[in-house]
């Protein structure tokens, strides 16, 4: 992924297997969220492809002026263009949350979850207006309530989303993502701004929803405690390049990763 002359993510190749929890870590500005945005269709990659369940869902190659300034190494590797908007990707059962919480602030927790159910509704606007989809509507509301119940948000269902405590807003955002019936859940820094206790709770929560909803989870995170505890595998990104990958123990002892996070010794002496 390249923005003008800046190569944000370079030659990153990663895979997430079914029912796994995989983390992507790296210092600020390493390109983690950019990678996420490529997967969810917010950006089209400059040169690259995304496969989901062995089906190509996103693919692009340098075109127009990008042909000249393309700075990657995979020129000519991809030759087709597959473009999907974020809503189409979500329909393929890939759901995401955001780094800075993006709830529907002025709506209630219940409405937030219910809106995510809209995508699977089959009624057209006329029958929905004339209440002909009565049964479907009932089903949507029931499922939304069940979801809130499972995630322990039942007692705040009529609260306005922006008035909830921070931790619950995070939970609600995950609940909303789950309402789109995902198989792959992408969490963008779910523990950002949380205190150690909340982070601990979140660790259990993520394990919990994986088993309950049979999910594959891909996480971007900074909290090393959380990452080391939940991940089956970890990828480390620095300046847009993959510098390490493997199980948590390997990463913990990887010299390159330690340098990327703590700075190269030479820098410290200055």
């Amino acid at each position, binding site marked *: 992924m390249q923005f003008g002359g800046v190569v944000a993510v370079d030659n990153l190749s990663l895979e997430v297997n079914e029912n796994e929890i995989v983390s992507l870590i790296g210092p600020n500005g390493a390109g983690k969220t950019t990678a996420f945005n490529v997967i969810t269709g917010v950006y089209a990659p400059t040169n690259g492809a995304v496969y989901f369940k062995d089906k190509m869902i996103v693919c692009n190659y340098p075109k127009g002026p990008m042909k000249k300034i393309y700075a990657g190494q995979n020129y000519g590797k991809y030759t087709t263009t597959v473009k999907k*908007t974020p809503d189409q990707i979500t329909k393929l059962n890939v759901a995401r949350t955001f780094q800075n919480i993006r709830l*529907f602030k002025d*709506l209630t927790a219940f409405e937030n979850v219910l809106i*995510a159910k809209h995508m699977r509704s089959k009624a057209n606007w006329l029958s929905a207006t004339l209440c002909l989809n009565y049964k479907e*509507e009932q089903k949507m509301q029931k499922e939304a309530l069940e979801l809130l119940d499972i995630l322990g948000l039942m007692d705040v269902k009529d609260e306005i989303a922006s008035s909830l405590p921070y931790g619950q807003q995070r939970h609600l955002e995950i609940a909303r993502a789950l309402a789109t019936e995902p198989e792959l859940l992408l969490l963008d820094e779910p523990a950002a701004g949380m205190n150690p206790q909340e982070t601990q709770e979140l660790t259990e929560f993520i394990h919990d929803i994986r088993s309950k909803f049979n999910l594959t989870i891909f996480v971007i995170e900074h909290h090393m405690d959380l990452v080391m505890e939940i991940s089956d595998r970890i990828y480390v990104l620095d300046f847009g390049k993959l510098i390490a990958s493997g199980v948590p123990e390997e990463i913990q002892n990887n010299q390159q990763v330690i340098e990327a996070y703590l700075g190269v010794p030479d820098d410290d002496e200055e």
Partner: protein
Amino acid sequence: MKTSKKVIYSLILAVITLAFLFFLESNKAKYGMAYTVLTKGIILAVVAVSMNLVTGFTGLFSLGQAGFMAIGAYVTAIFLIPMNSIEEVYYMSGVSPSILALKSWLETTPSWFQAMLPYIALIAGGLVAALFAALIGIPVLRLKSDYLAIATLGFSEIIRAIISSPQMDTITNGSYGLKKIQGFSSLIQVFLIAAVCIAFMILLIRSTYGRAFKAIREDEIAAEAMGINLFKHKSMSFIIGSFFAAVSGGMLAMFMRSIDAKTFTVSLTYDILLIVVIGGIGSVTGSILSSILVTVCKEWWLRFFDNPLYIGNFQVPLFRTGFRMVIFSVVLLLVVLFYQRGLMGRNEFSWDRLAKSINKLRSKSSSKGGSKIA
């Protein structure tokens, strides 16, 4: 409050409203002013709610209402000018053959169709406007906030310019406008048409699509990530909003009996915007309430300030034609100062809310020991 109680209250309110309308209808001559002003208020309520659907619920700041109303008004008018006076209306430039063909085809339709003609005319006007909305929506809805407002404003002016252009003389009668349009049979008819339109929009807002609209208003990026197709839902809201704006335009044509392009200038859009803002962006009942209030204030209650006022032999200064609008502006300023989010904010009228505020007033007055309310 119990649901059964609420239903009873609502029924009582509906009966009172209808009784009031019947009363006005039968005493038309005596209460001419109230009759006219109320009719106009009800008509503006339809377009105000439609604008609220687009602006308040979907978050699309569109200023094209006047243009869509013009389309609706002209289509409705062409349907509803009686066959025998059509030559008379188009006396300057002659009638376009296509209109004549349409009119003579309408003459051959069965009588039940003729009886339904006003409704069919309104729906036809709405459909034409919806078609235009769909077409201009394709480029325009990719724009955001103020840019969208300017683009739709431009569209509305283009429509007006086309309508009054000499090339359209045989269809729109250019700057002479259309006259002798068949009017409403009664105030009840106006009320019922408006009620059906508004009820439809309320149901839409409360459906799953309405929730999707609200999601777009709250956060486009999150809405898209939740699988809501932005363009589809935005254009849906825009098209439906335009449909009802056009129906309201058609009703305005039936109410005024004669229309010309000057009726549908930008200032009409601003009037509607004013109603929506005063009522509360995102509140249907607010829009209805404020369209009646604003119209009544502007056209009737403040008339008092337009006439010279004498106290004894002393003529109070400032009381002359036009002073009404000054007072009106001051009232608006006060309303905006004290109700920053409009009279209703984003809330809807409900019996629970009313009961709560009455209780509050009561407890306030009793704590003061006064008997102001009781």
